[in-house]
């Protein structure tokens, strides 16, 4: 597993520790290149692009907006609950919620 960990440390955005998962969602949904994808997320979160990879700033932002945090204790949004918040925040329909909404009687 050295490969995945080493790349994450050397070059990765940081996933849920930061805004890596959010930028990845924008790349996948909109096919944007990295600069545009980062700018899109920063604009939606009202933070600067450099803050997207800061685990201190992003932990607070994620906790406040219910986007999912690394150590989710009681009464904090988790999993699919966070995805609803992420979808609303990013402003586009996420494929991962389509089936859920149908199954849960939300669509």
């Amino acid at each position, binding site marked *: *597993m*050295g*490969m*995945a*960990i*080493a*790349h*994450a*440390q*050397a*070059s*990765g*955005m*940081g*996933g*849920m*520790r*930061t805004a*890596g*998962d959010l*930028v*990845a*969602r924008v*790349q*996948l*949904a909109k*096919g*944007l*290149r*990295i600069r545009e*994808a980062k700018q899109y997320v920063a604009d939606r979160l009202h933070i600067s*692009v*450099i803050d997207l*990879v800061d685990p201190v700033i992003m932990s607070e932002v994620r906790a406040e907006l219910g*986007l*999912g945090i*690394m150590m989710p204790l009681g009464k904090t949004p*988790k*999993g*699919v609950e*966070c*995805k609803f918040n*992420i979808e609303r925040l990013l402003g586009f329909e*996420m*494929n*991962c*919620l*389509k*089936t*859920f909404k149908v199954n849960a009687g939300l669509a």
Partner: protein
Amino acid sequence: MSKNYTRMGDGSPVELTDAELRKDLEDGANDAADRGKVPSLTEEDYKYLMELFQRKDRFVGVDVGNEVVLTYDEGTLKLKRHALLEDRLQALTIYERLFGADTIELCHVDYSYKPVKPIVGYEQGSLEMALLMTHAPLLYGAMPNLGLYTQPDGPCPNPMELLPQGKIKEARESYEAIIKDSVKDIVFASAAMHESGADGINFDTVGASGDPDFLASLLAMEQLTTKYPGMAIEMGMAGEFVLGTHGDLYYDGTRLAGLYPHGQVVLAEKAGATIFGPVVNTNTDRSIPWNLARTVVFVRACSKAAKIPVHANMGMGVGAVPVWDYPPVDVLSRASKALVELCDLDGL
């Protein structure tokens, strides 16, 4: 004279003088430029790479602000290989919560679209469960793996047995039948996982069986994105150029055999790819500086030609990573940093 500690493509340690280091960088870069008919490295690039290999740091990383998105292949398989007692859903959470993965990937142990077909219902169930408990974008991945369509593992005569016998027409006909069968399976499994909520589909090691494999993937992608506009598909390649095992296959008027990454990405875009993953093979007889300079030349040309995000493949034996199961971080981190920063990459 002080020497620079680095490694060969098989991971063996080696020490190079500054002159040897510079020569390896130039030779590697020029080899790629010559093969791909693309620009070689600039003096500024050589300065960057010389400094990178002269540094004594055990581990290096990109400058703050240059971080990129990581996508993975064989996501849930890699923990399994280490004999960890976990299931696939646990593996996904380990990637997400411990490894800092920007995306996660669910896959079946056979990691090929054909064997997923009869168990697709089980795979959908697992995917839907995983989507409830994870946060990062979840891809479903597998390989086209055209070898599974040839006898004795499949219905078609084996072109790799026909070709050495000089039966070129028969081999080509067999490949054409294989393409049809594999497109059906890739589309079937990918559509099912998309409808279950996958955030993306990963076509991995595309072109492993040569141009028929690449064509099957392009055609499957075209069908899927026509049926599901906006569907996200990542196309990760198997080799630096498309091997012409058929030799006479075309997509959108372009001959597939012999295409290097900067040509491959253009066709991937036309077929509907969301992310493209170029591959440059590591030569184990050469040093990592030689391999890295060579990789930068190919991948930079690909990144320049692309409109969609480019996530270069940097696993065992590709992207200047040594052919070793758990590559040493000294060369791995150098390759990771250089590729991202010199090639203007969007991800790995």
